[in-house]
């Protein structure tokens, strides 16, 4: 059933006068058809049916002036109303409508959702006539601005001048001659008006694109926001304020159309913010949605492959790096700024010397499902950059000294961050070392860089008690984590390799030879 209520046609409109009923009670109407003309602020507008049905009741007769929100009549199936429209008599109508005005006018406040809906009706569906409607009046932005400045509605200018293309001069003329719309004069005689449906009784509310986007997402009408904010230029902040503070009882029906519980939102006992809170519970608001591209796209594909196809298994060793750090400090002093010593270089050195004995770890699984063992040991080092994770390659890592590796690690790391690496620097790796320790990870399980078969992670160096010669003493420890593809690498191989790397790092002098 559709309740025909007097819509709020503009910010200053408080009441309106029914000019003419276009449909008799009991007469069928179809959706889009004009049903009643009303007049306010010198403008005549129409209310159209939003559904097929029968005009069940006229609650307000032509000539009567009533407040905004008053129910003017109802449209529905014949069985909807208590009145039998087919056999209605004049006396019955008179009685029914008399009651209707008295009671429904008092309910205006609680009936706002309906009134907003009706308010949208005339503008949107008014142009569905058979012959092409020449459309609303036209006005350049400068004319519209002038009208706003003078507080003159463009519709009024159109009505008074009879022109479709409105000029600044016409606005000036009407502004000079017209009374301010807020004055309480007698309602003008309907005969003096140009009775032509005026398409936009809501006035020109402007909304920024982002405000419109937000309003659509929240399912609130821009006009309602404009009214609540007291502006005719709606910004995003007006929409969010409206939703957070004002939306409670005035949310548009369309937002909750699927739920029959509109009424319950305004039942005694439910607070005004109920509807907004309800929405938060059901729909998380989306802050942002972005395509997965670039370095993140590569990560997406590769980690998907690893998760779907690899039998990734991780083994962990705790390494006493007290002596390694002492050696590191000695070398830092000795080598000076020319070659910044790198702990990663020691790890790569230990890996390079150990890998040849554990060949399934320096390998890849080919697309033909063969295991390709590499002779060269090219160790990739994972570097975090602004553009995502890069893994530049140290070629022939097993043939390089700690000093040479330090220099190479420095070159690749700064090249990765500055984006100056060559193409060759970023491919041909056969094994990867990943350092999550610099970010503070106590134990981190790295993921294999496909199509390789293993990756070694180095974790944070921490002060912990250790036992030396039966005494508990402070020592420095670091965890090494080896993730390997258990489809092609035996557990014993992985653990054996990790233990060998551990013992080399715990006797760091041996790595210098």
């Amino acid at each position: 059933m559709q309740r025909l209520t007097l819509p709020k046609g503009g910010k200053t409109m408080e009441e309106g006068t029914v000019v003419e009923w276009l449909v008799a009670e009991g007469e069928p109407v179809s959706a889009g058809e004009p049903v009643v003309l009303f007049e306010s602020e010198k403008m005549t507008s129409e209310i159209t049916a939003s559904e097929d049905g029968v005009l069940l009741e006229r609650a307000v007769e032509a000539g009567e002036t009533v407040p905004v929100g008053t129910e003017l009549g109802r449209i529905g199936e014949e069985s909807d109303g208590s009145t039998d429209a087919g056999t209605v008599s004049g006396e019955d109508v008179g009685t029914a409508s008399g009651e209707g005005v008295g009671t429904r006018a008092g309910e205006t406040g609680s009936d706002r959702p309906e009134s907003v809906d009706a308010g949208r009706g005339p503008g949107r569906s008014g142009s569905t006539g058979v012959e092409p409607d020449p459309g609303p009046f036209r006005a350049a932005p400068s004319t519209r601005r002038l009208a706003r400045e003078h507080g003159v509605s463009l519709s009024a200018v159109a009505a008074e001048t009879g022109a479709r293309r409105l000029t600044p001069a016409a606005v000036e003329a009407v502004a000079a001659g017209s009374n301010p719309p807020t004055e309480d004069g007698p309602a003008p005689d309907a005969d003096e008006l140009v009775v032509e449906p005026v398409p936009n009784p809501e006035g020109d509310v402007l909304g920024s694109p982002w405000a419109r986007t937000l309003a659509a997402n929240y399912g609130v009408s821009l006009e309602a926001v404009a009214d609540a904010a007291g502006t005719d230029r709606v910004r995003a902040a007006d929409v969010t304020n409206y939703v957070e503070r004002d939306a409670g009882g005035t949310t548009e029906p369309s937002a909750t159309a699927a739920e029959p519980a509109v009424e319950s939102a305004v039942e005694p006992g439910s607070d005004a913010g109920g509807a907004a809170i309800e929405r938060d519970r059901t729909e998380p608001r989306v802050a942002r949605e972005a395509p997965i591209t670039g370095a993140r796209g590569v990560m997406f594909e590769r980690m998907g492959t690893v998760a779907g196809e690899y039998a990734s298994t991780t083994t962990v060793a705790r390494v006493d790096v007290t002596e390694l750090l002492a050696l590191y400090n000695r070398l830092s002093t000795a080598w000076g700024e020319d070659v910044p010593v790198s702990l990663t270089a020691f790890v790569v050195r230990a890996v390079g010397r150990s890998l040849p004995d554990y060949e399934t770890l320096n390998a890849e699984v080919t697309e033909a499902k063969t295991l390709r063992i590499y002779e060269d040991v090219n160790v990739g080092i994972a570097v975090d950059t602004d553009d995502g994770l890069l893994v530049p390659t140290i070629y022939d890592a097993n043939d390089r000294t700690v000093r040479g590796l330090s220099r190479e690690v420095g070159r690749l790391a700064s090249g990765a961050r500055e984006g100056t690496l060559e193409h060759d620097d970023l491919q041909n790796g056969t094994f990867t070392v990943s350092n999550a320790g610099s970010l503070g990870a106590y134990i981190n399980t790295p993921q294999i860089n496909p199509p390789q078969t293993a990756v070694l992670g180095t974790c944070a160096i921490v002060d912990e008690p250790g036992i030396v010669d039966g005494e508990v003493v402070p020592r420095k420890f670091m965890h090494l984590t080896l993730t390997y593809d258990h489809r092609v690498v035996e557990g014993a191989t992985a653990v054996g390799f990790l233990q060998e790397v551990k013992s080399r790092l715990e006797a760091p002098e041996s790595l210098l030879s």
Partner: protein
Amino acid sequence: MSELTVRESINQALAEELERDERVFLYGEDVADYGGLYQVTAGLQERFGEERVFDTPLSETTLGGTAVGAALTGTRPVVEIMFGDFLAIVADHLTNYAAKMHFNYGDGTSVPLVVRTNYGAGDQFGLHHSQSPIAWFQNVPGIKLVAPSTPHDYKGLLKAAIRDDDPVIFLENKLRYETEGEVPNGGYTVPLCRSDRKREGEDVTVVAIGGMVDVALAAADRLATEGIDVEVIDPRTVVPLDKEPIFDSVRKTHRLVVVHEAATFGGFGGEIAAEVAEEALFHLDAPIERVGAPFTPVPFAENLEEAYLPDEDDVIAAVRNTLGE
């Protein structure tokens, strides 16, 4: 790190590239013996000799033609055009030859030349020596346009421009040769075609070009005292433009102000505004604001020139407009 002026950082970049690559050489009007009108190339001829750093007659046409020819033979000429205004004379060589040859021959031909020049008003040099010529070339595919803002970027981008295989017009703001800033010791480059977020903020995105980055940052500092949080993006390379960071920023702040020194009409700001309108219109909460010069030649008189140049107050007013204040 050391504290260098823009002039020193450009001089270092040139010296390092001359040192690094024997194909690099440098010439132009008064660049050698005199050391350049703004002393940017001071000392380079002494250090690298007359074969690598030399003066030329007053003929920009010759400078352009010889640079294109030299680049085609495999060298990497760096040419100085004394004022950006004179790019109009050398434009034929740049737009019709340097920019086109890679596309014309389809055989991998490249024209790796760099044209260094200065631009901008503020020195009372009048209408023939104060223009900002970015818009003259922004519509020419094949030329890269670089306009840095900090000593760090000037050095790193000039080195990258010299190593780049395409023709690059490298624009130096003549008012800011004395601007100081931190520059890393040793060789580094700043990649071309990557914009840089010079200040992070939540409320309004300001995209500023070249010398206007300083102005935008100063405006942002003043606005911050009122709780207005401005994000400043410096494209650094104007063409080809690194657009995504700008879109991302607008999607965050919903407001855009574009600032450059040239006239707003037909200027680069219009191009950024159009790109944002295409990609992020429905994220905008306010009309885009452009800050630039009026559509008139740069005035001679000091007071008029001051009024002509966009300043902090202009940026602040534009930011306020986007906030609906």
